[in-house]
């Protein structure tokens, strides 16, 4: 799967929590979950749990710490999928 396809799947997940729909429409690797999409910090956990379910992976706390933007989230998803 290429990065664009990953971004599309991630976009579907974050769409449930993103308050800034404009930023959501223009989502790219540089998009920040909190600063750009205005996802409530308590909902970041939901994003992580949804990613775990969608990709059937486990995201450890060390990885979650860094998951503040699309690029890092994609890197972590790819890494966890390779480890499977």
């Amino acid at each position, binding site marked *: 799967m290429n990065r664009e396809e990953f971004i599309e799947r991630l976009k579907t997940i974050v769409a449930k929590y993103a308050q800034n729909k404009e930023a959501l429409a223009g989502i790219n690797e540089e998009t920040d979950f909190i600063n750009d999409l205005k996802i*409530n*910090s308590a909902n*970041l956990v*939901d994003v992580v*749990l949804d990613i775990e379910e969608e990709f059937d992976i486990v995201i450890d706390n060390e990885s979650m*710490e860094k998951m*503040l933007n699309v690029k890092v989230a994609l890197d972590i998803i790819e890494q966890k999928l390779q480890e499977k």
Partner: protein
Amino acid sequence: MIGVDIVDLQQARLDSNWRRKGYLDKLFTAAEQLLIATAPEADVMVWLLWSMKESAYKIDSRKTGLRSFAPIKLVCSKVVIDGQSATGMVRYGEGLYYTQSELHQDYIRTIASGTPAALQNADVKITGLFADYKNSNPQCVSHHGRYLALAFKC
């Protein structure tokens, strides 16, 4: 330095299902989860602990300039609830923060500081969402749902 956080309880109930599988494990330590499990109102304890972590994190991230999402590393302790008020402590790495919270039926707001004295001297205002607050120069701002919480240092 003061950190402030407000949780609109109505908004939190709409937005977050903390009973979701795996949710509490990613946010709260075993000791914190015990507090939630044994609290008379689990809902209130969840958002009290969360606002404690958030208010302490705000000070830390301003001091260090670093961002991260590590709720488990923000460790709450000494949580004492007395009527509509609560106090506690949050440890985050090397940092130790004191917290004071107001438990309103519609919201929970917490202020954090590195010293108990600074908490005493803090002035917190809670307003509606569209208040023009920029000129009042607050030290820290928190917005959630219907509320804005502004913290001032006296």
